[in-house]
């Protein structure tokens, strides 16, 4: 078990390192840098001023040096200075993190609340109209563009109820009720989309388990259907579901970008888009690494869980 954990950790670290190189290179592939953007906001460009500015920001150095500098900063805990805001990147990002984490968590809650029961019902009532309806409903969520869903929700509310959720962020300390209302809709929108995969896995996993011998034995023994399902089948069916929840968390980030933009929530995802447009490298690099860490961490945890739950892994190394 110990070697297993260690192995996975080393691999995770190496992967992160690889990602840092990829994101560093990719960003610099994009034409234009912060200096060009700054001049764009000034409405003109002057080559001499540009040189001086590049020197001041340290971006006239060769890329390898800049990359090593960045690594050094990360290791010492310094996340660099935002090019756009002239402030430490962490200071700019910090207030955004809880918003995104809260939205992600709430979304996952909704995803599970919608997906698991739907999957169970669908499996139990396999191939009935209800099954088809649920599958269509679930697939529809997966098919709609996240930003469109958000737009339609807001516009529907305005047109039919003449009401919109607060479109400027309400802090939970200021007004908890309003804050929850504000998060409810975007979390539902994102959760609905994530629930599709969870529903599918729950359904298929349950179907497979229900075919297993020990279930049929339990049925043969005369235990009533419902107890059989809930006690035996569900327990074992949930293992792959847990995996999927971890994977789904990664896909969540994509949906969060547009949802935060449409619902105007000051989160990390929305900020990321702006930072990319501004070529604010320190901010983008750190944010992407942050999401990468979250993804890898959740994969790692899932792997651990597997290691704990599945004896084959535990003793197989």
């Amino acid at each position, binding site marked *: 078990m110990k070697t297993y954990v260690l192995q996975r950790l080393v691999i995770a670290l190496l992967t992160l390192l690889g990602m840092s190189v990829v994101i560093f290179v990719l960003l610099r592939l994009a*034409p*234009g*840098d912060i200096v*060009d*953007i*700054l*001049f*764009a*906001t*000034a*409405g*003109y*460009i*002057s080559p001499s*001023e540009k040189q*001086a*500015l590049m020197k*001041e920001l340290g971006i006239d150095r060769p890329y390898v040096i800049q990359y090593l500098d960045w690594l050094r900063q990360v290791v010492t805990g310094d996340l660099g200075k935002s090019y756009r*805001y*002239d*402030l430490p990147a962490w200071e*700019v990002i910090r*207030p*955004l993190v809880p918003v995104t984490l809260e939205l992600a968590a709430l979304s996952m809650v909704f995803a599970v609340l919608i997906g698991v029961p739907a999957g169970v019902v669908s499996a139990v009532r396999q191939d009935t109209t209800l099954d088809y309806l649920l599958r269509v409903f679930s697939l529809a969520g997966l098919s709609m563009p996240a930003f469109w869903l958000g*737009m339609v929700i*807001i*516009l529907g509310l*305005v047109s039919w109820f003449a*009401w*919109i959720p*607060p*479109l*400027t*962020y309400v802090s939970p300390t200021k007004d908890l009720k309003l804050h929850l209302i504000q998060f409810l809709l975007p979390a539902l929108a994102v959760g609905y989309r994530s629930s599709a995969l969870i529903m599918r896995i729950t359904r298929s996993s349950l179907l497979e388990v229900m075919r297993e011998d020990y279930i049929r034995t339990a049925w043969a023994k005369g235990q009533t259907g419902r107890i059989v399902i809930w006690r035996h089948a569900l327990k074992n069916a949930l293992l792959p579901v847990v995996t999927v929840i971890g994977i789904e968390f990664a896909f969540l980030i994509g949906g969060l970008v547009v949802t935060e*933009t*449409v*619902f*105007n929530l*000051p989160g990390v995802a*929305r*900020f990321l888009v*702006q930072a990319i*447009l501004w*070529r604010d490298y320190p901010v983008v690099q750190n944010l992407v690494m942050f999401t990468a860490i979250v993804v890898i961490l959740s994969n790692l945890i899932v792997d651990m869980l597997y290691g704990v739950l599945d004896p084959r892994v535990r003793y197989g190394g």
Partner: protein
Amino acid sequence: MRSRALPFLGVFAVVLSTFALAAPAQSQTPKSGGTLNIMLREDLSQGFAIHESSTISTVFPAAPCLNNLVQFDPAKAIESTDTIVGDLAEKWSWQDNYRNLVFFLRKNVKWHDGHPFSSKDVKFTFDMLREGPEAPAKLRINPRKDWYANVEAVEAPDPYTVVFRLKRPQPSLLSMIASGYTPIYAAHVPPASYRTSCVGTGPFKVKEWRKGEYLDYVKNPDYFIKGRPYLDALHYVVIVERGTRTAALQAGQLDVAFPGETTKAAAEQLKKAVPQLVITPVGTAVTDNIIMNSKKPPFDNLKVRLAVSYAIDRKGLIQAVHQGAGVPGAAMAPRPYGVWGMTEKDLLTLPGYGKPADMKDKAKKLLAEAGVKPGQPLRVEMVTRAIAVYVDMASFVINELKQVGIEATLKQIETAQWHAMATRGDYQIGANLTGLGVDDPDANLYENFACGSPRNYSFYCDEQVMKMIDQQSQELDPRKRLAQVIAIQKKIEEAAARPVLDHRIDYFTVWPHVKNLTPHHNIYNFARMQDVWSDK
């Protein structure tokens, strides 16, 4: 709010009678207190460093923190030398035949950190701006350096007097100093600090700037005009998504729209949903124009450039792209939006302003003369910025050009590369927007049409017109000057240097409880919020 109105009424009466400066005539008595939620379409670009930026996204939210020497009367929509009123300067006068400009500054003005304001700050600011030899500090980006090309020296003979010595008479200097782009920086803080915080003399102090989210101001209790500002606080909210911010305005979560961002169709929709909204059509000092690289074929040929100008139906564009929210005009804004523009009658003599069918015929003839054969359309690449307002306009223009035999493909250029590309001349033809910080011929003509100016993207250079520009800059008789400016505009359009398609109009929207916020025919110059009050 109501309980505090009474004592303020008394003070206000006294203030009104002694300070005949910025206090406008009121039909209602202003109340003190309240907060306004104001729309921002994006976060501040360079914080409060107005001198290092040229975008409304910096000027509009940063203005409440600062003051100018003089300003355009906040209560009047039109801006001209006649509407200039004092700000940090109480009195001013031209001397020596418009060669020296003297300002007499207010006393007892304090910076937000308690330091006293004096002529030292003014000299500091302008020496820095004009990059004079003894400049005390340097701006890392200085877009309006050329506004002060004619300033020989800035002197501060005593703490409350400043003298601008010019190399030659230039009446326009006063207008440029009145522009929202010319606030006064403090001499005792480094200019770079304005990118993150603001030490100003203005009616509001920065309370908190949550990056990407909002900007909070609180009232400056020591403001040099007693009784102002009326409002307790300002809350600028960043909403990037267009539909979301319109919805927020409609729902009353925002009180004030962002200048220049409300189209006519959006305004109609808003009015229908909320009939009590106050919507004011105003000029914006922003023009749609066509830049053509006159150093490279095919636009080095005057006939081809003229053909482009003839081909574009100005009124059609205004209707198609702006649903009527625009006015035709040449380089300077026409009345009532500006004071230097050409009349409708004069415009009709310019290329592209007659009957569309006739104009397109003329364009085809010109192209034929330039060697374009029918059936073999002229293929060009049109560039524009990758922003919706640009792209819509460009699409219309491409359609127009198609009808006279010019086939243009559209290439969208990202913001980061636009200015570099245009300055280098790496393009053939482009659909462009230009914003003017002040409705002044010097500010416009030198920047966009002078030989060798970096923002003269068309590389237009006419010695005679340069002479005319220099001449009007020194002309002291306003009537003569107007005639000269009109003559210049005519020449520019006839050379198709940078055909102006229209001057945009904004349908500035506020909720009815927002009082005394008069939009100007220039988006950059009415943002101080000093006299604004809330009737809630």
